[in-house]
């Protein structure tokens, strides 16, 4: 599984960092970034999905 944040959609709501702090952070532009470039370890799949679902602007894209 891979996660990407669409910068143009992110509104900095930061739900993702509360749901999946190991996967996401907020950068200096107050936009979410993925901390993991390649494949996500399996133990983070569930929280990454939850973050994508909870994102108010649908800015998180998950490739299974």
């Amino acid at each position, binding site marked *: 599984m891979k996660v990407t944040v669409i910068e*143009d*959609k992110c*509104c*900095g*709501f*930061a*739900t993702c*960092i*509360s749901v999946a702090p190991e996967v996401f952070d*907020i950068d*200096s*532009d*107050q936009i979410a970034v993925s901390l993991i470039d390649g494949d996500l370890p399996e133990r983070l799949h569930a929280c990454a999905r939850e973050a994508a679902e909870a994102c*108010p*602007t649908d800015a998180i894209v998950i490739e299974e």
Partner: protein
Amino acid sequence: MSVLVIGGSVAGIAVADGLRSQGYQGAVTVVDADPSLPYDKPPLSKHALKEDWDPIKGLLRPEEHYAAKDIELVTGRTAVALDAVRRTVRFDDGSERQADHVVLATGVRARLLPEELMLPGVHAIRTAADSAAVRAALADRPRLVVIGGGFIGAEAASVAAGMGLEVTIVEALPLPFQHLFGADVAEAMAGWHRAAGVRLECGVMVAGIEGAERVERVRLTDGRVLEVDLVLLGLGAVPAVDWLDGSGLDLDNGITCDEDGRTGLPGIWAAGDAATWRNPVTGDHVRVEHWTTAKEQGAAVAHNIARPDEPARGAGPVPYFWSDQHGLRVQFLGTSAGHDATHLVHGSFDEPEFVVLYAREGRIIGALGVAAARHVMKYRTAISAGERIEGLLDPVGEAAGA
């Protein structure tokens, strides 16, 4: 089974998508007055004013989304009347549509000046076409006057200042945002404008807009005259509900709803900027013009239509909005309405990176962050619970408390 959604902005599309994700099997139709594919409105006063804007980026969903989700999308058709008993909507081309549920999500329109003042070169920003017209006008490097220093005005001013244009903001209040955020935050925000070269004319109003073929001068109530090529109006917005007059709906600063999006008439729902939902905590009816609230209300209405046997869902308890000005992101959680104290709990007004908490009667009601998403968002739970403010203040906050 069928649902007819009037309005294809964020609330309307959230209804349609939410119905499908809840497994709703009936027909879903979204009708919008705008001829474009449904698009996102927050960028219209921000990035979309810049030359490099790509409108494709602004779409709420890619074009193929609607067919893929079996959502019928009708654009460029304006609703003109609702027969609430028959749940039938009539459109400007004379056609009618009937459905088991009708969701009203027609949003707001920009407040304009009286017609005689709306000379060529005077613009408001509410639709993609408005934004495109302003983008084209800015490319001619005009002298710009922004009337109203609120969010739309401040965002547009900051884009224009970033392009090196001569920009003046005319604001009736002593400082923009002072009534909302208090004097300290308002002073900090005014400082960003000044540092970017934007002229702020506060405590004064517009007495006239003059020009032969198009706008040339803005006359102020103190007698001064500003020479100008382009005027942008940031005067707020009014609910687009005129078409519902006589429908039997309760219209009072928007469409009155309960906390689940039901109007007083069976099968008629409302969501988004045009809707005045009851707040289940305070009991007040409040119309909120925030993107995330519109999205939450749309999703809630979809759930409540698709799953009538389950407990009804409401909107989220903590409103949120953001604004981009002079390269800084301002974020607000909760409300500042009726605050009686403010507390600086992170950073400083000069950095500029800070978080200010708003309290009423000793309890937190809101949090404002500038360039501090991680810090401001952690107050969401406290605001939702209405926690006592003392427990949230570190020593910095107490020292700076007002």
